[in-house]
Structure formats: C-alpha cells, structure tokens
C-alpha cells in the first residue's frame, strides 16, 4: 500500500511537475504577450485617433480661421464613417466650443464645454483626447475626441486565445508526461511488485528484469544484488536463529530444571520446617542469617563468628563447639541434635543441626551450608514414647511376673491334681477290688455289681484327670515348629491302634507325603485323638474304613481324617470341641469329651483351624490345617467357631 501510494505520489509529482512547468512558462509568456499586445493596441489606438484628430484639425483650420462653424460641423460629421468614435468637438482659440459631433445623444454630456489642455486618456472603455490645432505654428484652437477604446474586448479576446493555447499546451504536456511516466515508473512498479512478493513469500531467489540502461536499470541491478545479499543474510540469519532457538530451548530446559529443583528444595526446606544458614570456610556465621536470627533472637553482631554458639543450650554448648571445630577442620558433614534457644517461645528447643561443606574442585572448603530442623515435638514425642514404652515394659514385666506366678500356681495345682486326686481314686479302686477278691463269698451279686460301679467311677475319674491335665499341658507347652511328615505319624498311630485291638479289621488308607510344619509332640496329640476317635466310632462296623488325606478348598489345602463310623448329628456340631461335651452315650462309646477340645487347642495354637462334617451312622470327616490364614475370620463352616 505504501509502495503503491509512494508510486502514485511519484506519478502525481511527475504530472504536477510537468504541468506546473508548462503552466509557468505559459503564464509568463501569456503575461508578456498580453501586456505587449495591449500596449501595442493602445499605441495604435492613440496613433489612429491622433491621426484622425490631426485630420480633423487640418480640415477644420480654415473653418476656424473663418469661423465657419458649418464647415467644421461637416468636417466632424465625416466621422460618422467611424462608428467607434463616440463624440468629437472643436474649440476655438479661446477654448470655446466651436463645433461638435456625437454618435448618439447619449454622448453629448461627454463633450466638455471648454477646451482643456492637450492630453490623451485611455481607460477600459474609452479613449479621450485633446489636441491643439495648429496653423503655421500658431495654436488656433483644439480638437476633442472620445472613442470606444475596445481595450476590454481586446483583453478578453487575447485572454481567450491565450487560454486556448494554454489548454492545448497542457494537454500536450500531460501526454508527454504520461509517456515519461510509463518509461520511468513501470520498471519501478515492477521492482516494487517484486519487493512485495519477496516480502510476502520470503523468496529471495526472485530477480527483477533489467530493461533499461539508465538509472532505473542501475536501481534494478542494485535491487537484485541487494536481494541476493538479503537472501544470503536471511539464510544465515535463519540458521543462526535456529541455532539460537535451540540454545534458548536448551537453556529454558535447564532453567526449568533448575527452577524445579530450586522449587523442590525450597518446598523441602519449607516442609521440613527447617531454617537454613551459611557460614564461611572457617565455620563462622556470615552476616545475614535472617532465619537463624528470627529463631534465636540473635543479631548479625551477636551471631557473627562463633557467636551463634551462644544460642546453644549451655549444657550442649561445649560439645557442639568441639564437634563443630572438628568438622570444620576435617571438612566433613556435620550433624548434631542439641537444644537451641527459641526466642519467640522463650525456651530451648531440640533441633537437628546439620551442615555440609561446599567444596571447590581443588578440595578446599568454600563455605558451609546447613539447616536447623526443629524436632522438639518429635523429641518430646520420642521421649514420651520411650517413657510409655518403659512403662509398658514395666507393666509387661509385672504382668509377665503375675502370669508366671499364675502359671506356677496352675502347674502346682495340676501337679497336685495329678498326684493327690489320683491317689484316693487308686485307693477307691484298689480296695473295692480287694473287697471283691477277699470277701467275694460274703457278697451277693448286687453288692459285687455296686463295687464294679465304684471302680468304674474311680477309673473314669482317673481318665478325666489325665485328659484334663493333657489339655492344660498342650496349652502351656512351648511350641517348637519343624517340618513334619504326617503320613508317617499316621501310619505309626494306626499301627498302634491295630495292635491294641488285633481282632478288629479296619481298612485304612493314608495319602503319602502329607507334609506339615508344626510341633511334633502336639501334632501327634492331634492325630492320636482323631485316629483313636475314628477307630473308636467305627468299632460297630464290619467294613470299618479310616482315611487320611488332603483336599483343596478355595485355594487352601486341608488335611482330613475320614471314617465311616457312627457319625453325629450336625446340629450338635458346635459342641463338638467343647471340653466334657459328648455326643455319644458313654456306655456305647466311652470317652471323657476332652480329646477334641485338646485337638482344637493344639490347632489354634498353630494358627490353623478345624471343623467337622458328619452324618449320623454314615461317618465323620475332620478337616484341619496347621497354617494361619487370613480367611480365619470367615467362619465358613459352622464348626470352626468351636
């Protein structure tokens, strides 16, 4: 737009220039011509009128001499042939009007009554003239003439002619200037267009055509050279720009990383509720320690050098000072917990004071930087925890002692139970037997039967005592776990049972390599009870079967002992593992009801679980595991709660 405007301006300027030049020349020429022409015209007019006046003068000399007014009048009347003459008059020697002439009555008033001095006056419309009339060098009168001057018309005409010429001249100039413009501006326009294109397309390979050998041609040449220079420079610039952009990118990345790291550190420090400080290579605090001063209430003067140690608790000061000197000497990181004066709170607070030396590449310490972390609450909490722990420990010890005491009491109780309760039972049984043996002949059958009942009762009580002791023993015994082969134990136990009742035929099946991890004695108690139960409750079957194996439930494996014996009603399953609870008649299947309670206690001590499934007269299956499970709380089976 600007270029076009500039160009149109050039075109305009050229045109205006040419036109102005032409117009100026024409104006000067015209002015000179008009002035000259009008002067000339006037001169000729005056000359003509003078000549006319002279002619009149000449013709009227005689009439004047003879005062022949009529002749003079006629002479003047001849002027009728000259229509431009409006009025004329002849005056006598005394200046009185002698004869007069007028072209129309309107001009009568123009004729002066008296003669005036000779003169010629020309104005725009008229020319007025007084002229003396000579006769042999003697003035005998004067003549007056008034004629149309025609100056105005003449001026108009001349101006009209001049203007016509000027118009033609200007038109010619315009044409000429157009041609010139075409010659001058079109290459410039071309260059301008090219420049525009270059600017828009950023294509520096474009070149203008040189069509002329003049200054414009030179301009185009220069423009082309400039283009190639710009092209070169631009590509260089672009390359350096891209390099620069890359550098800027790298730098901004680095700055970003730096600022992130800085932010992280700042956040870290703020989060740590720690304050930072700086010290010189010798470990003397530098002047500005705003954070330190606001914590300790010190001033730049008081913390300067080793003055900062004055804020340390007097009891800690010497040690800190000593350790700090040592750290400074060895240039090693320093960390110490001590009490620091906290001015806002007016108290000493525990802080974690840590420092690291900044070491230059030459291995020299440049300065020290460090943080002070207020750990007062933590320390107090720790102390509190320690105190509580100690208290707890103390209480645990007390309880343990109490427990141990109770345990000892229990032990001595169970000792006396086993020892002292059994002795009378033995007496009851033994002397009942003695009675039967020694006085059998004096007793009737009923008495003997009663004595048998006494003996049975005593013996049963003996077994109860034994089982109870066993139950308490498995609860108190220390658990020593080790890998066990349950298959082997089972085989051994079944073998023992078989030997105890060789007359029975029981089909037994044991899965090999049933491995577990537990206390061998206690696990043996479990298997002992389960197998002797199975053995006992299959006693009334001819096709007794006992099976020991392993099954999977929900990804966990369980051992099981299965028999096809008497079984039990599942509605009593919850009483199965309760001590002294029995689901069978003692006469049918004798027992104390402590065995399964003992089994469950052992299994619980291992962290496992046990439950049973049974159907009356079809048999029972006892499932158990010796390993703890997070599913223990699930209680999927009614018996697991036991």
């Amino acid at each position, binding site marked *: 737009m600007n270029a076009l405007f500039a160009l149109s301006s050039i075109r305009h300027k050229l045109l205006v220039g040419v036109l102005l030049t032409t117009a100026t020349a024409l104006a000067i020429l015209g002015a000179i011509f008009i002035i000259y022409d009008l002067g000339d015209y006037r001169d000729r007019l005056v000359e003509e009128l003078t000549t006319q006046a002279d002619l009149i003068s000449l013709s009227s000399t005689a009439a004047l001499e003879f005062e022949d007014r009529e002749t003079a009048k006629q002479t003047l009347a001849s002027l009728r042939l000259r229509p431009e003459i409006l009025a004329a008059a002849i005056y006598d020697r005394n200046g009185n009007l002698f004869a007069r002439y007028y072209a129309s009555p309107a001009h009568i008033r123009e004729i002066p009554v008296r003669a005036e001095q000779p003169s010629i006056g020309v104005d725009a419309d008229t020319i007025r003239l007084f002229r003396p009339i000579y006769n042999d060098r003697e003035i005998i009168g004067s003549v007056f003439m008034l004629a149309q001057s025609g100056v105005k018309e003449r001026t108009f005409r001349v101006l009209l002619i001049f203007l016509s010429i000027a118009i033609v001249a200007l038109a010619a100039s315009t044409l000429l200037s157009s041609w010139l413009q075409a010659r001058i501006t079109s290459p410039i326009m071309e260059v301008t267009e090219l420049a525009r294109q270059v600017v828009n397309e950023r294509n520096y390979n474009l070149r203008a055509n040189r069509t002329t050998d003049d200054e414009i041609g030179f301009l185009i040449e220069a423009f082309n050279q400039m283009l190639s220079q710009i092209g070169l420079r631009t590509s260089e610039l672009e390359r350096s720009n891209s390099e620069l952009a890359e550098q800027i990118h790298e730098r901004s990345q680095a700055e970003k990383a730096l600022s992130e790291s800085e932010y992280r550190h700042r956040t870290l420090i703020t989060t740590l509720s720690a304050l930072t400080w700086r010290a010189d290579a010798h470990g003397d605090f530098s002047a500005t320690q705003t954070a330190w001063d606001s914590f300790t209430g010190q001033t730049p003067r008081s913390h300067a050098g080793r003055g900062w140690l004055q804020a340390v608790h007097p009891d800690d000061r010497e040690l800190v000072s000593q350790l700090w000197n040592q750290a400074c000497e060895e240039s090693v990181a320093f960390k110490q917990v001590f009490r620091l004066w906290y001015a806002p709170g007016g108290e000493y607070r525990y802080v974690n004071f840590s420092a690291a030396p900044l070491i230059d590449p030459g291995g020299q310490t440049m300065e020290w930087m460090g943080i002070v972390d207020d750990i007062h609450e933590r320390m107090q909490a720790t102390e509190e925890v320690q105190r509580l722990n100690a208290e707890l420990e103390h209480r645990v010890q007390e309880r343990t002692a109490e427990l141990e005491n109770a345990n000892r009491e229990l032990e001595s109780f169970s000792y006396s139970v086993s020892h002292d309760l059994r*002795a009378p039972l*033995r007496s009851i049984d033994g002397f009942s037997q*003695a009675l039967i043996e020694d006085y059998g002949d004096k007793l009737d059958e009923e008495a003997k039967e009663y004595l048998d009942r006494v003996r049975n009762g005593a*013996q049963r009580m003996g077994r109860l005592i034994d089982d109870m*002791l066993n139950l308490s023993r498995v609860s108190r015994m220390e658990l020593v776990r080790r890998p066990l082969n349950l298959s082997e134990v089972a085989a051994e136990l079944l073998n023992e049972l078989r030997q105890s009742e060789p007359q029975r035929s029981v089909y037994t099946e044991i899965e090999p390599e049933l491995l577990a991890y537990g206390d061998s004695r206690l696990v043996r108690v479990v298997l002992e009870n389960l197998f002797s139960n199975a053995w006992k409750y299959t006693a009334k079957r001819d096709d007794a079967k006992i099976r020991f194996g392993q099954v999977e439930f929900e990804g966990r494996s369980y051992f099981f002992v299965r028999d096809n014996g008497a079984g039990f009603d599942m509605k009593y399953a919850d009483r199965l593992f309760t001590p002294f609870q029995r689901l069978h008649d003692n006469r049918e299947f004798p027992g104390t009801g402590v065995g399964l309670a003992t089994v469950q206690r052992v299994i619980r001590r291992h962290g496992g679980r046990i439950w049973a499934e049974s159907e009356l007269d079809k048999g029972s299956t006892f499932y158990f595991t010796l390993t703890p499970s997070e599913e223990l709380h699930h209680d999927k089976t009614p018996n697991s709660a036991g």
Partner: protein
Amino acid sequence: MTRRPILLVEDNPDDEALALRAFKKCNISNELWIARDGEEALNLLLGSDTETSEYRHLPAVVLLDLNLPKISGLEVLRRIRNDPHTKTLPVVILTSSKHEEDLIAGYQLGANSYVRKPVDFNEFARAVSQLGMYWLLLNELPEQHDALKSEHT
C-alpha cells in the same frame, strides 16, 4: 531270683497296702522294706542313722514315690546317686505324677525307670508284677552288689 529286699518309699498308707497286696498277688516274696518319707529312705540306704545301719546292705531295687514328706523323692534320688555306695543302685520312680518336669528331672538324676501308678488296681498289680519280674529276675546287677551283700549277711 535274688532274695534281696525291695525298698518301697511311700508315704500314703493306702498305696503301701495296695503295693503289698500287689506283690503278694504276683507271688513276690522278697523282703519288703518300707520308708514313709525321704529322710527315712536315705537313712536306710546311706546309714546316716546308726539305728538303721543294719540296712547297710542294699535292696535289689528302690521303688521311689516323688511326693514325699521331709525330703522329696527327687532329692532322695540325687543323694543316692551322689553317694559312691549307692551310685549304681536301681531306682524306679513309682508315682502318681506324669508331670513332664518330674520325668525329665527323674531321668536326669539317674532314675532307671519311671512308672506311673495306674488308678485301676488290676493295672497297678500288673505293673508291680512286671517290675518285680524285671528287676528281681531278669535284670543282672554288677558284682559289687553281691559282694556287698555277702559282706553284710
């Protein structure tokens, strides 16, 4: 069968009677010494009491209860084993207790056997009979005992 006596250390008279009955029942006719507490037993064996020095020759076997007045059975056993004279004397712990600690302590102190008295008299009689059978008939004692025996008889 050795004719040497059997020493029964038993504080409970019922048990003593039952033991005697059991011996009789299985035809053990050896002399039966009875000590009713630990002190008495030690006097019999180690002869610290002059009155009982006649017992200086040793029994074939000691049936020792643990729960005894004055000196406990385990202490009696410890002293028996500490004395060179009675060091090798067969001692069978015959007690109501099946206490694990008692068992361990008994064997550690050098008991030769540990037998629990059953409540059932028939079983008790059987146990006594088997003990007699074993210690009086089957078991061989070193020469020292015979030598000592002949010395004192």
